[in-house]
C-alpha cells in the first residue's frame, strides 16, 4: 500500500476538514452518551431532579439494578429476542432472496410487494399482531383451533411462556424484507459465470450454494446480521405497544426497563445505568464486527 505524504500545511487543512464532522459527533453523539454516563453515577430521582449539585454515588445505581431480578430478566429476554429474531429473519430472508433471484416473471414486483412489511410503522405492526394473537378473537388461534391442531387457543401474549415468542413473530415479520433486500443485492453481485463454470465442472446445487454463494455473500451476511443485531437489540416500540414488557417482565427488554425506571418511576439514574448496559452490549458487538471485518480484509488482501 502506498502511503500518501502530506505537507505540513495540508495536514492543518486536513484537520480543518474533519472539524465539522467531529463537532457534530461531539455535540449529537458524544454529549448525550457522556451525560448519560455521568447521570448513571449520580443519585438523581424524584426528590432532587431540580436541585443543583447532584451527589455522586459511584456504582450504586449499577449495584442496585444488578442486584434486582429485573435487569437479568430483561438482559436474557433481549438476547433471546435478538437471537430468535435474527435466526428467523435471516433464514427466511435468505430463502426468499434466493427464490427471488431464480429469475421468473413478476419477481421484481413481488419482491417489491414483500417490502411493504418493512415500511409499516412498528407500532402498527404491534397492534396488528396483538389482535391476531389474541386468544379470544385472534385469527391465528382461530386457525389453530378451527383446524383441530389444538383444542384450546394459545394465549400468546398473556402467558409468560409464550409472550416473548409472540413478539419475536411480529418482529420477524418486519425484519424479513430488510434481510431479503440486502441479501438479494449481495447475491446479484456474484458473477453468473462462476455458477456456469461450476455447473460445467459438475458441481451440485448444494455445492454451488456452499462453495460459491456463501463465501461470496459473506460481507453482505455480516452486514445484515450486524445491522439486524443492533436494530433488534434496542427494540422498544414494538414491545412497548404489544405487551408493555408484561406479563410480569416476560417480555421486558433493556430498553423498556430503562424507560420505565426513568419515566414511570422517576429513578433517573438507575434508568441511565440500565440504558448504559444496553449501550455497552451494542458497543461490544460493534467492536467485534469491526475486528471481524478487518480480519476478513487482511485474509483477502
Amino acid at each position, binding site marked *: 500500500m502506498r502511503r500518501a505524504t502530506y505537507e505540513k500545511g495540508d495536514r492543518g487543512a486536513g484537520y480543518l476538514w474533519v472539524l465539522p464532522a467531529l463537532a457534530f459527533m461531539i455535540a449529537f453523539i458524544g454529549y448525550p452518551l457522556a451525560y448519560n454516563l455521568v447521570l448513571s453515577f449520580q443519585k438523581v430521582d424524584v426528590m432532587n431532579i431540580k436541585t443543583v449539585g447532584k451527589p455522586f454515588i459511584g456504582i450504586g445505581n449499577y449495584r442496585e439494578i444488578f442486584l434486582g431480578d429485573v435487569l437479568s430478566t430483561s438482559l436474557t429476554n433481549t438476547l433471546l429476542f435478538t437471537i430468535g429474531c435474527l435466526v428467523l429473519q435471516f433464514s427466511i430472508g435468505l430463502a426468499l432472496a434466493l427464490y427471488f433471484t431464480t429469475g421468473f416473471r413478476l419477481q421484481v414486483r413481488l419482491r417489491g410487494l414483500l417490502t411493504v412489511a418493512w415500511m409499516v410503522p412498528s407500532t402498527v405492526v404491534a397492534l396488528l399482531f396483538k389482535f391476531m394473537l389474541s*386468544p379470544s378473537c385472534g385469527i391465528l388461534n382461530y386457525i389453530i383451533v378451527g383446524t383441530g391442531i389444538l383444542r384450546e387457543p394459545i394465549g400468546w401474549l398473556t402467558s409468560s411462556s409464550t409472550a416473548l415468542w409472540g413478539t419475536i413473530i411480529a418482529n420477524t415479520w418486519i425484519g424479513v424484507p430488510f434481510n431479503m433486500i440486502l441479501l438479494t443485492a449481495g447475491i446479484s453481485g456474484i458473477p453468473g459465470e462462476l455458477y456456469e463454470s461450476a455447473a460445467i465442472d459438475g458441481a451440485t446445487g448444494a455445492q454451488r450454494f456452499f462453495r460459491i454463494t456463501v463465501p461470496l455473500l459473506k460481507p453482505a451476511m455480516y452486514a445484515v446480521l450486524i445491522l439486524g443485531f443492533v436494530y433488534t437489540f434496542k427494540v422498544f416500540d414494538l414491545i412497548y405497544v404489544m405487551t*408493555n*414488557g408484561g406479563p410480569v417482565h416476560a417480555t421486558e427488554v433493556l430498553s423498556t426497563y430503562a424507560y420505565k425506571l426513568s419515566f414511570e418511576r422517576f429513578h433517573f439514574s438507575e434508568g441511565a445505568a440500565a440504558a448504559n448496559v444496553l449501550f455497552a452490549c451494542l458497543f461490544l458487538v460493534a467492536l467485534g464486527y469491526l475486528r471481524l471485518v478487518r480480519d476478513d480484509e487482511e485474509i483477502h488482501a
Partner: protein
Amino acid sequence: MKRLLLLSFALVLLAGLCFAEPVEIKVWHYWGGFEAVPFQAVIDGFNASQNKAHAVAQYLPREELNRQYTIGLAGGNLPDIAMVDNPDHASYAAMGLFLDITDRVKAWEGNGKFFEGPWLSCTYQGKVYGVPQNSNCLALYYNVDMLKAAGVNPPATWDELAAAAKKLTKPGVYALAISAIGNEEGTFQYLPWLLSSGATITKLDSPESVKSLTFLTNLVKNGFMSSEVINWTQADAEKQFATGRAAMMVNGPWNLQAVQTDAPNMNWYLAKIPKDKKYTSVLGGENMGITATSQYPNEAWAFLKYMSGTSVMETYMTTSGKFPPRSDVMNGSDFWKSDRLLKVFADQMQYAMPRGPHPRWPDISNAISTALQEALSKTKTPAQALKDAQGKVTKALSN
C-alpha cells in the same frame, strides 16, 4: 425623512400598547376522543370571556405527556398549565414541575370548597401546587339481558359475584372484564378489591390482601375472567363489554359515552363494585397546575379560576360524565342525584379513597400492579406476590 420614520415607529409602538395581543396560555392534557370536546368548550369559553389571554389546548397521549413533562424538567419545552393524573401530582410537585400557588389560593373564593381527597392530591409538604380538575371512581357495569338470562341479580358481594360468574360464563362470554395491566391503570382497578377486604396499602402482605388477590386469581383460574386482563387497558375492557364478550366490567364514568356509542342497543346498567367487608372505590381524576417555568402565571391562574368557577365547572361536568371536585357544585345540583347512570357513580363516589398522595407513589403503584400481574399470570402465588410487593414498598418509602 428621519423624523417621519421615528414618528411612524412611535405610532406603531403606541398602537401595540393599546391593542396588546392576548398572551398565549398553553394547556397540555391527555383527553382524546369524546373527552376532548367538553374541555375544548371550557377553553373557548375562557377565550371569549376576556381579552388578556388566549388559551390553547394541546392533546398528547398520557404516557407521552408524562414523558414530555419529565424531559421538560431537564430543560425542554413546557406548557403554562399542565394536567396530571392525581396520584402523580405529588411526584411532579416534588420534581419542581409546578408553581406554588398557596398564596393565590388563600385569596380565592374556591378555597375550602373542594372535597378533601381531590384537594389533598394537589398538595405537597403543606403547599398547594394545583387544583383538582375533575373526579371519578369505578363502578360495576352489567349487561341486564345476560344477567336475566342466567337468572342472577347484580352481585353485591364477592360470594354473589363468584356464584353469578359461574352462571354467566359461556363459550365466547366471560363473566367479568377488568384491566389488570402492569401500570397505574392496573393498580387503580385492583385497589377497590384490596381495600374492600379491609387491607391497607401500607400492609400489602396481610391475610386480607392475600384474600383479595386470591379472589381475582380464582376468577381467572376458573375461566370466569379472561387471562388477557393482564394486557387490557380500561378502554380494552370497555370494548369487551360493549361487544358482548363480557357480561360485567369494572370501569369509570368516562366510558359511559363509549358504551352508549359502541353498543346503542345493549341493555345495561350499573351497580356498586361487589364488596367483601365494605364498599370501596378509588378516587380517580385529574389535576391542573401552573408550571414553574410559565411566563404568564397570572393569566394561567385566571384560567384555573375560570375553569373552577361553579357554573363553568357544573356545565363541564354535566357534559363530560365526570364528577365535580367542588362540594358546593356537587351538592348544589340535582343532576348527579337524578341522572339514571351517574347517580350510581355518585353513590359509589362516597366510598372512593385517594391514592397517596406521596411522591413515591409510582414505586408503590408499580409494586402493586406487578403483584397483580404475577398472581393473575400464575407466575407467583398471591401470598408470595404480595410479600414481594410489600418488600418493594418498604424499600421505596425508606429512601
